[in-house]
């Protein structure tokens, strides 16, 4: 299954959720959202509700990781190395991570319900789904302005997206509408270009 933008470009780090695909819940895990070279690594981390996330700082500068997202607003004030404790994310949803010092640092935690199967697309925007789902939810950071909305596909909609089908493999391509452009990294304010002077338009 491939997730693409309306322009047909593969969407990396999209999350495909197959609701109710997991029968039994696994143990609580501690996941790592590292900060390397002023970036969250990985950019998108998928975890299950109730998991813990550690935010080690691999840079030699301090970061102030925070989130105002609804599932779990938190902040880890200026720190270096590994904070004292990992943060628990008990509720499902999307948590947008930022660094209060470095505005260009953005990261996402996709907290799936324990019963849902959440898979992340690779560099080709592809993901292997073990079964043909009856419904699907797809998320991508650019899909909504709030970055918290999911695209929900019904079975018929999924069927409509089938590209090719063999006995072993059904290829599905999901086109995902995007609400946010590729956000460029914030840059320093550029001096206003000096336009050449022109005549007074009110002059007769």
């Amino acid at each position, binding site marked *: 299954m491939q997730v693409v933008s309306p322009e047909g470009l593969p969407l990396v780090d999209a999350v495909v959720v197959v609701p109710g695909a997991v029968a039994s819940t696994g143990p609580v895990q501690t996941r790592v959202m590292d900060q390397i070279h002023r970036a969250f690594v990985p950019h998108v981390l998928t975890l299950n509700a109730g998991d813990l996330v550690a935010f080690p700082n691999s840079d030699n500068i301090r970061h102030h990781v925070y989130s*105002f997202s609804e599932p779990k607003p938190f902040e880890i004030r200026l720190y270096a190395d590994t904070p004292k404790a990992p943060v628990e994310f008990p509720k499902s949803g999307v948590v947008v991570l930022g660094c209060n010092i470095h*505005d260009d640092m953005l990261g996402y935690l996709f907290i799936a319900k324990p019963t849902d199967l959440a898979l992340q697309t690779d560099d080709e925007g592809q993901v292997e789904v073990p079964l043909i789902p009856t419904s699907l939810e797809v998320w991508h950071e650019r899909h909504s302005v709030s970055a918290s909305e999911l695209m929900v596909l019904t079975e018929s909609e999924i069927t409509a997206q089938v590209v090719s089908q063999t006995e072993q493999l059904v290829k599905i391509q999901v086109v995902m509408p995007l609400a946010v452009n590729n956000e460029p990294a914030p840059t320093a304010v550029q001096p*206003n270009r000096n336009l050449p*002077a022109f*005549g*007074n338009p009110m002059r007769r």
Partner: protein
Amino acid sequence: MRLRILASLRSQILTFTSVLVVMSLGAVLLVVLLSSGQAIRNNIDEDMAESVQSFREAINNRRLQLVGNATVLVSDFGFKQAVASRDSATIHSMLANHGQRVGADLSLILDLNGWIVSTTEARLMPGMTFGYQNMISDVKEGNDRSDFLVVGEYIYHIVMVPVRTPRISAIAVFGVRMTPQNVRKLITDQGMQITFINGMPDQVERWVNVSTLPDLESILQAIRAPENFKTLLRMPFEKKQRFSSRKIDIGDKGGTVQVILSDDLSRFYATYESITNQVMALAVLIFLVTVMGSFAISHRLTRPLLALAVKSREIARGAFPEVNNIPSTSSDVSLLIRAFKRMRNDIAEREERITYQAHHDSLTGLLNRDAMITAVQDETEFNKPFILMGINLIGFKTINDTLGMEIGDECLVTVAERLKKLAYKGITSRHSADEFSVLIELTPDCKTDEDRRFLCQRTLNNLSAPMQLNEVSLSVDYRAGFVSFPEQADKPELLLRRGKVALEHAITTQDALYAYKEGQDKVHLKKIKILKHLKETLQNDDDQLQMYYQPKKNLRTGEVEKAEALIRWFHPTEGFIPPDMFIELAEQTGLIGLVTAWVISRVLDDQKRLKDAGFDLQLSINLSAQDLSNDNLRQLLDQKLSENQLNAEDICLEVTERDMMTDVDKSLELLDYYRERGFQLSIDDYGVGYSALSKLALMPVHELKIDKCFILKLATQNDDQIIVRSTISMAHELGLSVIAEGVEDKASQAFLQRLGCDFIQGYYLAKPMSLEAFQHWLTHFDDPNHGG
């Protein structure tokens, strides 16, 4: 006239120099204005460029500062937290607090759709849209935007920055309100005005503006002003260009606010005006100096000219003032003065000459008539008695004819020179070719007419001394008449006229010296009047003149065979005018030809009538010497003869002995002609003409008429009897018939008959009669009781 021309010369100089100065200064002023205008233009360009540059920098700095402040603000964790909280009260208090930190007059939080989330501006409510969507969409993508925007009633320098929580979830808007004070800070050049304006050009009342200019009127002027200065040259009614403006494009094109930089030109005008004033002051100064200078020069030029004009008027009046003391102000003027002096001298000399010529006879240098009158006038004023004598040179014409004009002239000059010496005070004049007059001093001892006559005679004697001219010795004879002042005339004209009358009398009477007699002038005047009447009556042929006929009786036959035609003049007012009087006058004035022509016509017509009436008579006509040589009369005679079918024998021509003998040769020739032609010829008035008998014998005449002076008293005068007898005898010897006129008594007739006289004529026979009377008389002549 002269003065006006000179004045205009002065004004011409003044006008010329004034116009020159005004023009050149005008040109200088124009150049100053043009170059000042160019300088101002350049200045404005530089000023404007600098101002625009510095303005841009100032705006950019403000923008950088605002953006920096805003960015810092939105980076604040608390700010982010507040925005993320979505709690409006929290956000509002945070905005108010943080906005103050950055010195913002306006703070807003917008959501990414441009809706107001929170605001510090009371007039903006949450939920309203902020507008400026193009800026918002730029900011949504993470850019900062700043521009001058209108919010409410004010213009703000607005900066918009994205709020990251951590994704861009809102837009923070901060604005600094533009006030004239902080606008002023944007530019260092105090002469430069900045105007922020928002609105349509035609909706001034709805404009929102912020300006360093004091009022809307100035703002309007400023924004309508051209980008540069046009010119300093303008018409008086044109307004001064107050501003030069340039519109600056400066924001992120978010709004419609225009920024206009205006250069206030008044400071340039100040410079220019001080230059203009200096030039004008200089112009006035130069103008005054020029006017005064040219006035002085023209005055120096015209002063001598005016003086010369005054002098020339004096010269025109006949005065010849000295031409000194005229200021010679330049070489040209002194040249003119020298020329003027020469002219004055020349004119004076010429006038002297002309005056002399006007008053003097050119040949002799004596006075002319007019000058003589003046001189005599002057002399009469002394009231001293003197004599004016008129002198005529007898035979001067002969001198001229025989010795030549040169001798004649010399003769006149000599006479004149003598007269000058003899004249009292040299007052003597020449009136015509040979007529002079001279003033003779009357000494107190001269009392009687004889004394006067003696004085005149002495003068004449001195004058008539023989003169030697070109080896010709010449003695000139004179006739002279004189008049005495004041007894006989007291006015110069009268003196001259009466002198002339006396002289004419002397000439006609062959008197060498004649003294004017009282009343002679009147006779002279009467003669002139008679002459005038004679001319008139000849012209009009108005029956004033009549022909009378006096019969002549043949003593042998006792028959009337001839008659003499005699002219008679009956003037309506003057009465009977004796023929002696007017015939003589007519001869003297050359009028005789006309008179004789009239006589010939009338007599020949009458002869025809007589013949027609059956009378066969020979009629005689009196001819003067002048008439004899008059070709017109000869033609007239021929014409009238043939017209009336008469023969020449029917007419006898009577010529006086005197006329005949004056120029014998000529008379011979003329008489021969008439004799050949067949006319009878008769010598009239024989015996008083002093003629030489030898000459008489030559005359080709038929008849001799003895003058009546010998006949009238013939009966008693023995002398007359002797003369008459011998005359008759001589005439008969010469083959001439003899007639006696003036026979008034029977004794005379008897005596004449005894002597063998052929014809008689006279009152004894009959008076002269009109044609009708004559015819009547002839009819009854045979009647023994009648007349004879």
